[in-house]
């Protein structure tokens, strides 16, 4: 097949008037027929329509074509269509070549008939030249291991794990913290329904724990991922809890006796925890964890533990897992206003963040649900909320946190107002984004309750001697500058990528977008897929989103991944890197250049060679560029195939 004399058919699409109205399609087709190896041309009204495809297939049969060039719209939308059409008629889909004369020609030169026609001829000539050199390629496949890894046990990761587990796949659910549950476990209530957060999350956590197919690996981290779709080799670090989790009953006797008091992370550092502690009352697994960094070694806990679970000499364990697919749900962090002292945070006692407010509001929180202000523990009467702290701000993050913080502030003002009607609330906002179902109603409810909304970005925060803070803001609806004195100011901090996301991105070879979150394969059409086959992303790892959205994503990853798991094999693209060992001098430049670890030097001395793990290759071709000898080639984008295009941009004038 490869050595067969090329017989090329060129099909020029009029696309109704989209192409035919702006350039001379017949002239382009006639020109194509003068090119070497072109044995058939045809102008189609709509090449992509059934009739157009039939004309291609007829051309293939009648003229014994082994290569097809279609000059029409863009490969980004129609390449699969024409490839399938060629394949049906017996032409290898990789010997199909797309020439873009609509999106990149007729539509952008609408008033230059001659220029557009000349350009279309050039593009067709370039396409034909490339087509001449195209080689048939086969897509291969690899088997898919039936185990699943879910990284992160927040609500998105938990949902994914449940769905995978329910479908019968064995799931490793790896969670960095000592308990599953994630951010949602710390919320008081959730908008727009104002359900009690832990009341609805708790049962889900139990469901995870009960699911026989889910293997919870809490207080553990993924440190390395090798391999490729269907065959990932994962290294998990089990951090020592310094107790035997099989023996520990979660009774909490240890934390009673522990003399070391530390700020409680779960409570946003309001309140205390001990050096040995149970993360929170609903924790799953309900086991204690010893914070060795802060342990003074008094061994009080060991004495108190009736079960005898304490193990001071426990060591970290690295476990190797093999999995077929991976869901990444590593979540987010709230924006930290401390470094820049945004709105006086860190300078003035009575400026706190939403997450802190959330814990104060929570009945199980450090104040038993009484919102008090930090300076004097007095319950505030006038409370202000500033939205878009750390988001929609050119100095911090330009993106909007997806309406999550708008709803946060609305919900929190509403909750406090309901609890203590004597309170007054101000929400300083730029725009209220209440886009999802029930959000607008929640907004209206807050207004009805008397929460005051001031459209304006506060310009200055000052502290008074009594600890009150004064917000100076231009009410842009009224067009006047006002000073609002508050007992407590709450910053509606935006969502930012989890601090570990860079590391996780590097481990999984996932690109990060400009906002720092992981990039999905396509924001619209592949929102939970990633550029690494077999790795899916759920929840806030791929951008700010609310609980419903994150949960749906968790399920979605399970759905997408099951395509591979249920079939048991994953396709490998045809456009991967290949090596010509005769030409290769084993210089190893490709090894460093590949972001996916496709290449390795194997063998010794004269037998050294480069091993190419094709299944890892994503087909970017960066290695091919770096290879000085030309031994490396990217199938379908070979050096001579691209150069054929370059060399056919120009022609001798006499033609």
């Amino acid at each position, binding site marked *: 097949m490869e050595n067969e004399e090329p017989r090329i058919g060129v099909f020029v699409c009029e696309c109704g008037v989209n192409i035919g109205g702006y350039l001379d399609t017949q002239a382009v087709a006639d020109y194509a027929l003068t*090119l*070497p190896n072109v044995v058939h041309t045809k102008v189609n009204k709509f090449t992509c329509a059934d009739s157009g495809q039939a004309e291609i297939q007829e051309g293939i049969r009648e003229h014994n074509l082994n290569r097809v060039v279609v000059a029409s719209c863009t490969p980004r939308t129609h390449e699969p269509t024409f490839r399938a059409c060629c394949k049906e008629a017996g032409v290898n889909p990789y010997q199909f070549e797309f020439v873009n004369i609509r999106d990149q020609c007729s539509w952008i030169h609408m008033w230059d008939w001659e220029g557009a026609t000349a350009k279309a001829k050039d593009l067709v000539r370039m396409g034909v030249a490339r087509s001449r050199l195209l080689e048939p390629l086969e897509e291969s496949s690899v088997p898919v291991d039936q185990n699943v890894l879910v990284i992160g046990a927040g609500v998105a990761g938990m949902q994914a794990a449940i769905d995978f587990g329910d479908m019968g796949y064995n799931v490793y659910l790896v969670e960095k913290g000592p308990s599953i549950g994630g951010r949602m476990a710390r919320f008081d209530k959730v908008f727009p329904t104002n359900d009690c957060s832990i009341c609805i999350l708790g049962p889900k956590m139990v469901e995870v724990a009960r699911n026989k197919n889910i293997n919870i690996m809490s207080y553990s981290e993924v440190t390395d991922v090798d391999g490729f779709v269907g065959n990932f080799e994962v290294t998990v670090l089990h951090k020592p809890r310094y107790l035997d989790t099989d023996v520990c009953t979660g009774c909490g006797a240890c934390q009673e006796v522990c003399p070391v008091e530390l700020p409680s992370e779960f409570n946003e550092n309001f309140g205390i925890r001990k050096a040995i502690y149970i993360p929170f009352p609903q924790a799953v697994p309900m086991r204690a964890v010893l914070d060795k960094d802060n342990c003074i070694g008094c061994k009080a806990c060991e004495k108190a533990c009736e079960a005898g679970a304490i193990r001071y000499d426990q060591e970290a364990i690295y476990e190797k897992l093999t999995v077929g697919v991976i869901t990444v749900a590593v979540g987010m962090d709230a924006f930290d206003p401390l470094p820049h002292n945004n709105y006086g945070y860190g300078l003035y006692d009575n400026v706190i963040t939403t997450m802190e407010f959330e814990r104060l509001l929570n009945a199980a929180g450090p104040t038993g649900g009484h919102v008090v202000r930090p300076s004097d523990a007095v319950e505030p009467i006038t409370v202000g909320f500033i939205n878009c702290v750390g988001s929609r701000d050119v100095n911090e993050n330009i993106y909007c946190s997806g309406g999550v913080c708008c709803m946060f502030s609305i919900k929190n003002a509403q909750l406090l107002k309901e609890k203590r009607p004597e309170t007054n609330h101000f929400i300083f906002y730029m725009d209220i984004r209440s886009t999802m179902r029930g959000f607008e109603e929640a907004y209206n409810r807050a207004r009805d309750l008397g929460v005051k909304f001031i459209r304006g970005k506060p310009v200055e925060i000052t502290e008074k001697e009594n600890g009150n803070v004064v917000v100076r803001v231009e009410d842009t609806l009224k067009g006047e500058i006002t000073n609002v004195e508050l007992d407590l100011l709450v910053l509606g901090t935006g969502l930012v990528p989890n601090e570990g996301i860079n590391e996780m991105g590097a481990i999984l070879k996932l690109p990060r977008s400009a906002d720092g979150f992981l990039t999905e394969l396509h924001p619209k059409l592949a929102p939970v897929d990633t550029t690494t086959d077999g790795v899916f992303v759920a929840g806030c790892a791929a951008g700010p989103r609310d609980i419903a959205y994150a949960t749906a994503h968790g399920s979605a990853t399970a759905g997408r991944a099951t395509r591979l798991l249920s079939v048991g094999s994953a396709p490998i693209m045809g456009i991967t890197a290949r090596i010509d060992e005769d030409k290769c001098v084993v210089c190893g430049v490709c090894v460093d250049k590949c972001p996916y670890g496709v290449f390795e030097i194997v063998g010794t001395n004269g037998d050294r060679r480069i091993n190419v793990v094709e299944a890892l290759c994503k087909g970017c071709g960066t290695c091919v560029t770096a290879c000085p000898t030309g031994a490396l080639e990217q199938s379908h984008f070979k050096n001579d195939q691209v150069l054929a295009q370059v*060399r056919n941009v120009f*022609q*001798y004038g006499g*033609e």
Partner: protein
Amino acid sequence: MNENIFTTVCPGCSIACGMYVREKDDGTYDIDWRKDAVVNAGKLCRFGVRLSANLKAAVSKVDGNEVELSDAVTAAGNAIVDGAAFVSVGNTTCEEHLALMKLAESKGAVVNTGMGAFSSIPAECHSTMGVGVPLDAIESAKKIVLFIDPYEQYPLLVRRILASKKNGATVTAVGWKAVSLADDNKTIDPANYESELDLDNDSVIIAEINPSTDPERVMVLLNLAKASGAAIMFMKPFVNAVGCDLASKKTEQKSLDQIIAEINDGSIKTLVCLDSDLIEIMPDETAVREALGKLDNLIVITSRASAITDVAKIVVATEPLYKKAGTVVNAEGRALVGSGEGTDGIDVVGAMMGQPVGMYDEVHAALLATLGIEEVDERVVPEYEKPDYAAMDANPTAEAVETALVYAGGPFFWNGMVDDNDFVEMNLDMVTASSLLKGIPARIVSDKGEVAIKYKVSDVAPGVVLSNVKLPMTTGMVTSVTVSR
């Protein structure tokens, strides 16, 4: 782990650039640049640089079967009969050539060097035709006229001519293709050479003699040199063409065309070739193959595998040139010896006539006597007698072509090499008139067949398709063709 180092010369053409060969334990070799070499300071052209890839060692064969060298020698000795013809164009040492002359003599024949021009031109001119001017003299010439394309045919002359230009020389090129280093490129009717070129004692004419050269053209150039007082240098395609010529009894020789004609008419039944591949050298490859097929015995003594070793009845394989003891005389007349000590080439010829091993010293001494020198010193160009010759009658026709493929030989052409860079040249008008597409080979058709080959747009005369590689559809050095997409 050891390496053997041989100082030697490049066998690509008659310049004989110095090089050294690095031979490894496993017999493979690499060339390297011998920078102290008197000829060209170790500079090499594409042929020399790629020598180890270009030249493949020959294997002894009888009737197509591989045999021991001694068996091939015996078979050859038995097959060489009286009336056999001998060819040695100069691709080996003078000593081997002399040994072959002895063998030929014993069979009542002479060794033909294949240079038809020599046979047709009076003997007193031969010295002038054979030995040119020292390469240094090119650098100090005031005017240089090129009848060759130095870039393609004799690339190592380029630096000499460039040096001459630096020294103030003007360069005129006469030929099919504009030579970029020339100050002036001309197409001149041979009748007007003298008037248009305006040469004098400080001028040097550089031209070529090869087995297909028309003697009339050589005579015109000799007359031009004589009339103007200019020095003349005829380059030759073979490394030792000059040496073989000096050693040979020139006048009795036949041209290659004559030899082919005599094979065809049945008067030559046995042909002995010493490092000379007629299939490679002669432009009409099919005609040569046909003729060679008519021989009773084709005996090839050679150091390298080539087209002719595939069709020969007997192949006697000798060591490569770099390993041979012996002398080579280059275009300047400079005698050169390498550090090789092999005498297989001479010993096998000796064996064919029943001579004992060890003939080398004897033939070497004979060579020194022929050259008129006591010992070979590469730094000294021997003085050659240059008798005054009479102007000759020559009636060259102005070369005009309709559309023709014209061969301009170069090292790759004469050594029958092909590589990825093979292409023909023609001018832009011809390319556009023939509707050629860029990057798509041109189709060249003659009476004998057709080829598709890459082409290059160059400043070539109208109607000429110039080639430095041999194409399998030619009838001679000039072949009428049509060109199309």
